[in-house]
């Protein structure tokens, strides 16, 4: 299963959501499908995409927030599972693309390649609903289930360690940040 295919298969749903991604391949691939003002790419600070999504979800309860995370990033902030579970925002969907690799920095294997199970960690931390997807159909079904349930869910998508040809785009970090913030604030009017 390719991450790009997964993102493509839910892209039309993401148009209506607030989306926060991690750096690297996830950011580049979402952007390659078409940037929107409701997409924020956290191009550093590994581990904090889910915390950012939590902050937004708690601040804007009427918006659906989708975090596109990765195994390398979430392993740097495993405490995020317990914090998300503790506050259980009903409007937060946490998707972890698990390619068992730190792909963007040379493809070194992460601990998920030797058995660490992120969905089980999420479940044991108290996240009320979790799923593991190994096919694109399973992935789409899990995401639809999360939207329908209107509850916190962590979906681990097992994907190939394949990234985009290019990681850098012409969207500057600050341009993205200010546009995104302006979009979020406009939803409150």
């Amino acid at each position: 299963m390719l991450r790009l295919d997964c993102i493509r298969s839910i892209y039309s749903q993401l148009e209506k959501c607030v989306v926060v991604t991690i750096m690297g391949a996830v950011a580049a691939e979402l952007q390659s499908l078409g940037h929107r003002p409701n997409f924020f790419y956290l191009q550093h600070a590994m581990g904090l995409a889910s915390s950012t999504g939590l902050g937004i979800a708690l601040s804007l309860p009427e918006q659906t927030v989708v975090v596109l995370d990765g195994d390398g990033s979430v392993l740097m902030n495993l405490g995020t599972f317990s914090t998300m579970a503790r506050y259980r925002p009903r409007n937060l969907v946490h998707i972890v693309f698990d390619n068992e690799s730190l792909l963007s920095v040379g493809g070194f294997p992460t601990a998920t390649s030797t058995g660490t199970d992120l969905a089980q960690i999420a479940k044991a931390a108290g996240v009320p609903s979790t799923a593991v997807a190994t096919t694109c159909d399973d992935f789409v079904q899990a995401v639809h289930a999360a939207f329908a349930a209107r509850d916190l869910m962590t979906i681990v998508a097992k994907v190939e360690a394949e990234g985009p040809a290019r990681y850098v785009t012409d969207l500057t970090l600050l341009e993205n940040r200010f546009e995104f913030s302006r979009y979020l604030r406009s939803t409150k009017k």
Partner: protein
Amino acid sequence: MPVSVNSSKVIYAALKAAGIRLVSALPETWLVHLIRMAEDDPEMILVRLAKEEEGVGISAGAHFAGVRSAMLMQNHGFLASINGIVSFALLYRIPLLMLISYRGSFGERDPWQTQGGSVTEPLLRALGISYFCLQTAESVPVRIAQAQALCSSSLQPVALLLTRDLMWEE
């Protein structure tokens, strides 16, 4: 426990007056009253963290959404948050209001706090973060209002160090 209830009340009232509506925190002795006040306040969203660096992401998300927030942490929590502060708050111009209990400075009796105490201010200076040491309850309202104003206008992190003189009564 001789943590100053009065100073905690003054700090909390100043945060409310500054429009703070979300507080992320990790408990530490000097902050117990402040965290309880946030917990008991229906107008405040309190997020208890596993590690302080999460608070940088949470505050950034709140800021994007137009909600004013503050981080309550010990200086060792500030040390634990450095990458988030550098590669999120500073990189992305996030107005991060940090209230940091200044352990390990003059008067400290706990040996384990002392190393962090000696590097707190040098580190804030190295990061180019404006900060002020709060030493008396009288100075709290105006300094917190000023810190929030600078945070908002500069779109940069600002720190208030909560000193022993302010927080501890014995």
